[in-house]
C-alpha cells in the first residue's frame, strides 16, 4: 500500500473481491484487492484487456458493490449501502468521464453539465453559475445552448469533464477518456486533466495507452484482478 500516507485518504479498498458468476463459470474480476488513493493524487490505471480496470473503476465510483471486502469513500463504507445511499454517494462524491462521452442528447451543454445537481437531495443554489463557470473553464462558454450532436468529440468530452466537476467530487474517474479521440484532441483533454490535478483534484484515469499513462503522476498496473505494479513517477522530493 501507499508508503507515504502524507495525504488524506479519499478512497480505501481493503481486500476487495468482485466475482462474476456465469452459470458454472466464476470470474474473479478483482481478487483480494487492497489500495488507498489519497487526496490530490493523479493515477493512471493500466493493464491488459480483462485485467479488471473497469471493474475497479465501477467499484470506486459506487456503481457496483464488492462481492467481499470493504470500500470507503471519504470514510463512508459503501459495501453495506443500499441502492439509494450509493446513488446519493455518487451524486456527492464521484465525477465520471466516459470513453464515449455519454452526454444526454436532448439536453444542451449547460443542462448536461448540471445533470448531477438534479439528483442531489439539496442542490446548491448557485448551480447555474457553477455550470457556467465550468463551461468557460473547459472552453465552451460560447456553446452553452448547443446539443451534444452539434459538438465535436473533443468538445463533448470537455462537457463531460465539466459535468464530472459540477458536484466538486472527491474522485474524478475516467475510463478510456481519450479512447475515442484523435491524438491532438487527446492531448488537449490530457492537458485539462493536468490542470485539474494542479488544482488539487483526485483523478483516476484508466487507459491502454502508455503515452497517456506517462502523463499521470502515478501508475497502477493490474493483471488478472490483482495489483501487478505500483509506480510513483514523481516521488516527493524526487
Amino acid at each position: 500500500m501507499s508508503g507515504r500516507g502524507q495525504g488524506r485518504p479519499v478512497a480505501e479498498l481493503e481486500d476487495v473481491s468482485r466475482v462474476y458468476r456465469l452459470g458454472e463459470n466464476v470470474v474473479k474480476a478483482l481478487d483480494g484487492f487492497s489500495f488507498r488513493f489519497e487526496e490530490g493524487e493523479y493515477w493512471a490505471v493500466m493493464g491488459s484487456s480483462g485485467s479488471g480496470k473497469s471493474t475497479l473503476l465501477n467499484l470506486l465510483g459506487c456503481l457496483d458493490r464488492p462481492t467481499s471486502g470493504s470500500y470507503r469513500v471519504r470514510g463512508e463504507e459503501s459495501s453495506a449501502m443500499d441502492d439509494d445511499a450509493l446513488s446519493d454517494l455518487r451524486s456527492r462524491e464521484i465525477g465520471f468521464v466516459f470513453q464515449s462521452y455519454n452526454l444526454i442528447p436532448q439536453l444542451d451543454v449547460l443542462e448536461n453539465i448540471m445533470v448531477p445537481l438534479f439528483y442531489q437531495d439539496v442542490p446548491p443554489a448557485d448551480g447555474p453559475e457553477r455550470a457556467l463557470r465550468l463551461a468557460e473553464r473547459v472552453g465552451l462558454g460560447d456553446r452553452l445552448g448547443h446539443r451534444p450532436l452539434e459538438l465535436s468529440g473533443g468538445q463533448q468530452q470537455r462537457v463531460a469533464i465539466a459535468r464530472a466537476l459540477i458536484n466538486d467530487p472527491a474522485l474524478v474517474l475516467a475510463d478510456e477518456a481519450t479512447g475515442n479521440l484523435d491524438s491532438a484532441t487527446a492531448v488537449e483533454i490530457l492537458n485539462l486533466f493536468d490542470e485539474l490535478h494542479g488544482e488539487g483534484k483526485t483523478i483516476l484515469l484508466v487507459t491502454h495507452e502508455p503515452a497517456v499513462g506517462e502523463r499521470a503522476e502515478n501508475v497502477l498496473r493490474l493483471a488478472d484482478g490483482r495489483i501487478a505494479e505500483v509506480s510513483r513517477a514523481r516521488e516527493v522530493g524526487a
Partner: protein
Amino acid sequence: MIRGSLLRTVRLGVRSLLLHKLRSALTTLGVLFGVSSVIAMLAIGEGASEEAQEAIRRLGSQNVILRSVKPSDNQVTDQTTRVLTYGLTHDDFARVAETFPGVVRAIPIRELPDEVRFGSRALRPRVLATVPSYLDVTGRVLHEGRFLEEIDDREVANVCVLGYEVARHLFPFQTPVGEKVRIGSDYFTVIGTLLPRVRLGSDRPDPGEDVTGEVFIPLKTGRRWFGDMILRIRSGSRDMEEVQLHEIVAEVDLAENVPFVAAACRTMLDREHTERDYEVVVPLELLLRAQETKRIFNIVLGSIAGISLLVGGIGIMNVMLATVTERTREIGIRRALGAKRRHIVTQFLVETVVLSIGGGLLGILLGMAIPAGIERWADMRTIVTPTAPLLAFGISAGVGVVFGLYPAWRAAVMDPVEALRHE
C-alpha cells in the same frame, strides 16, 4: 423545491417526447380516440335521453293516456265500402272522469282527418277536437291569443287554435290570430297559437306530410260538423270509421297513484271492450323505462370506454417499454451521475402521463367538437355535461400512471453498470 424539480422533469419529459414527434403523436391516438368517443357518446346519449325524458314529461308524468287503436283483425273483406266501429267511447270517458278515485280531471280528444288550408297553402295536421283544460293537463304553452274556452264549446263556435308548426307553415309572414282558415269544408277563426313541443316517438306522423302539427277546435264543434263518422279514402277502397273518442287524458292527483289509475283503466277497458281497440300509455312508466334504458346505455358506454382506454393504455405502455430499452444507456448515465431509482421512475412516469394527458386533452377537444358538429348538421340534441371532460382528464391521467408504472419500474431496476455498457 420538489415542485420546481417536478416542473423541470415535465419540461424535460416533453422535450424527450418531442425528439420523436411522430411516434409520440401516434402513441397518443389510442387515448385520444378513447376519450373523444367517450365524451361524444356520453353527450349524444345524454342529449337523446334528455329529449326523450322531456317529451315524456310533457305528456305529463302524472297523466294516464288512453288511445283508440284500430284493431288489426277482420281486415279481409272485398267490400269497397264498409264501416268500422272501434275505439274509446263517451261512456269510457265518463267512467274515467267521474268514477275513478285519484283522477283530478280527464279530457276527451277526437282526431279529424281533415285538410287545413289558408289561401293556397294546405296542410294535413292532426285536427283535434277537445276541451279547454287540454292546455293545463298536457302542459302545452300558449304562444299568441288564447286557447279554447268554455264559451266556445257552449256556442259551438267555429274557432281554432293552431300548433306552432301549422301556424308557421300557413302564416309564414303574418300572425294568424283573427284570420280564417278552412278545415274540411268549413271556415274557422284562429283565436290563438301554441309554442312548439318536442316530437315523440309514439306520435304518428301522417305519411306524406313533412310538417306534422296540430289544430285544436272545440269538442262540440267537431261533433257538429264532422259527426262520429270519419271517411278515409285509401287506394280505391272507401273506409268508414266510427270512432267516438281518439284519446282520453286523465290527470292523476299524485304520482304514487298513477300506477293504480293505469291499472284501473286497463281493467275497465278490458271489461267494456270486446276487442283490443285501445291502448293505455303511462308516461311515468315510459319515464322509468327511459331511465332504465339510459342506465343500460351508460353501462355499455362505460364498457366501451373502458376497453378503448385499456387499448390506448396498452399502446402507450408498449411504446414506453420500447423507449426504455432504447434509452437504456441514458438511464445508465443518469444513474452514474447520482440518479436514484425513484428519479428514473418519476422521469418515465412523467413522460407516460404527459403522453396520456396530451392524448386526453386532444380527445376532450375532439370529443366536444363531435357533439357540436352533430347538433349542427344532424339536428340532434347533445349535452356535454361538465363532469364528462373532467372525468376524461382524470381517467387519461390515471391510464398514464397505471400503464407507465411497469416501464418506469423496468427502467429503474436496471443495473447501472450493465445499462452503461448497453449500445
